């Protein structure tokens, strides 16, 4: 599947509400936005019941509905519409960012820098933390070896004396060394990326079977956004979901 086709497929999944559950979940068990969205069901049911009762009363008396009943209908309808349209305002900043990621994210090439050892075990079925070198430069897809070599160079920084490194390299070495996940992504200088532009060191959760394209991992990411919520590795199952 081409990258353009894959992005179109992801948009299609998002429109059907099936993309979120395919990406790594970092939410609380019961987000308020979901609960408020669910409450629209009884709210619309209440509106329907009131309309039926109002119509029955009107047909029995032959008059129009009383002004109070009509205003009550308007109030109930407003509540239902507010729940339908407004549940998104109950999202946390992280949920907002992930929503933006699913809607506006671009497909970026990614190479493994480091990952939890359990990822390499046979039969691993867990999502595990790790770091990737993320590249928005289209040249990375044409020459994947450049990105994987850069990722290896980056990993080698981890065991170097950070006081002897240039400050930008030292910051990357520190991020890899402390391994505390998740942290904000860090822009990688192009001299460490073999001239590839717009590369970032990002912490992600690795799906058990990540999607690969041209020998590189495929990430959905928001360009220029450093939050760890602004990047997600795609699982292989996504490419087959919905028969695409």
């Amino acid at each position, binding site marked *: 599947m081409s990258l353009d086709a894959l992005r179109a497929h992801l948009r299609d999944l998002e429109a059907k509400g099936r993309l979120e559950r395919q990406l790594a979940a970092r939410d609380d068990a019961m987000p308020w936005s979901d609960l408020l969205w669910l409450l629209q069901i009884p709210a619309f049911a209440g509106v329907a019941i009131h309309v039926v009762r109002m119509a029955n009363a009107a047909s029995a008396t032959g008059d129009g509905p009383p002004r109070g009943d009509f205003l009550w209908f308007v109030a109930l309808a407003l509540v239902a519409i507010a729940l339908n349209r407004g549940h998104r305002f109950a999202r946390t*900043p992280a949920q907002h960012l992930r929503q933006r990621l699913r809607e506006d994210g671009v497909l970026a090439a990614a190479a493994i820098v480091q990952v939890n050892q359990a990822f390499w075990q046979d039969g691993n079925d867990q999502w595990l933390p790790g770091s990737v070198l993320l590249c928005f430069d289209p040249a990375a897809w044409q020459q994947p070896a450049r990105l994987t070599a850069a990722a290896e160079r980056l990993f080698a920084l981890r065991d170097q004396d950070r006081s002897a490194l240039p400050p930008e390299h030292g910051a990357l070495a520190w991020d890899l060394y402390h391994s505390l996940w998740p942290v904000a992504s860090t822009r990688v200088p192009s001299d460490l990326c073999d001239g590839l532009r717009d590369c970032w060191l990002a912490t992600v959760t690795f799906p058990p079977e990540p999607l690969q394209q041209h020998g590189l991992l495929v990430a959905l990411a928001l360009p220029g956004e450093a939050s760890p919520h602004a990047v997600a590795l795609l699982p292989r199952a996504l490419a087959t979901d919905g028969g695409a």
Partner: protein
Amino acid sequence: VDAAPDRGMMRRRMTKEDRLGPPLRDVAIGDVQALGALFAEQRARLAVVRENASWQWLGGVPAGPRAPRAVLHGLYLQLAFVALAAVALILAGFTRGPWLWAFAALAAACLLARAVILGGPVRRTLRSHHRVLLVPALVVARTDVRADDGVGVPHVHALLQPAPPTPASFAALLETAARLRRLLAGEESAPADLEPALARVRAGATAFDGGREPLPALGEAFELARLEVPPLAMPDDALTSRLVFVLVDPETRGPGGVRVAQPLLWGPGGESLYAALREQEAA
């Protein structure tokens, strides 16, 4: 919880130099330079957690002895709110009378109660997460208690100093912990004002709730913490050394003021120091 207040303040506390230096793999007990680098690195690790609001490394939000109950009650009240609000919304189709307003009021009460039950612990925990120090603690007494799953969970008394550690303070801690162990074993006569504390440790009847008490008889800086050491929080999945790195809230001596830090906060250098103390004891 998405909150990360006081980020600027935390940045000031950690200097950029804290994260510089070579990777620490082997830290010897008496190596002053390596110990200084280790404590600086641990400060930097704590700063990373705070800057990124990755509170799971400090025990989550809310944290503390009553936190699981508060979370559970918060969950129940959230579910109750949804159920009551759903009933109220459907009832609104039938009536504008007292039944509707009773259910609406109950739903609102659930929201309010949830904010009260969960809000306090969340705010307290966040304040504590911004205050805690990562310090070494030395186990002076230990009892293994079998948990429901059959795994032995050490209940320990550990000596610590609730202040930023330095190589000198660590050396003093080692010395004082050794003396305290001798006092507990009766190999040395104890000062009269220390006897009540020693009796409490020997009796082992205290609650291992992360509380601590000062021991002025041993020095102004020293305090004795009582805590559970979850085996999975140890580098080798069991407490095999006298050393434990703990998170200590300098302002809270009560329950939850001390808890074992996760090994990623110790760093490989901290783990090597843990192993060095184990080997020293074995020798």
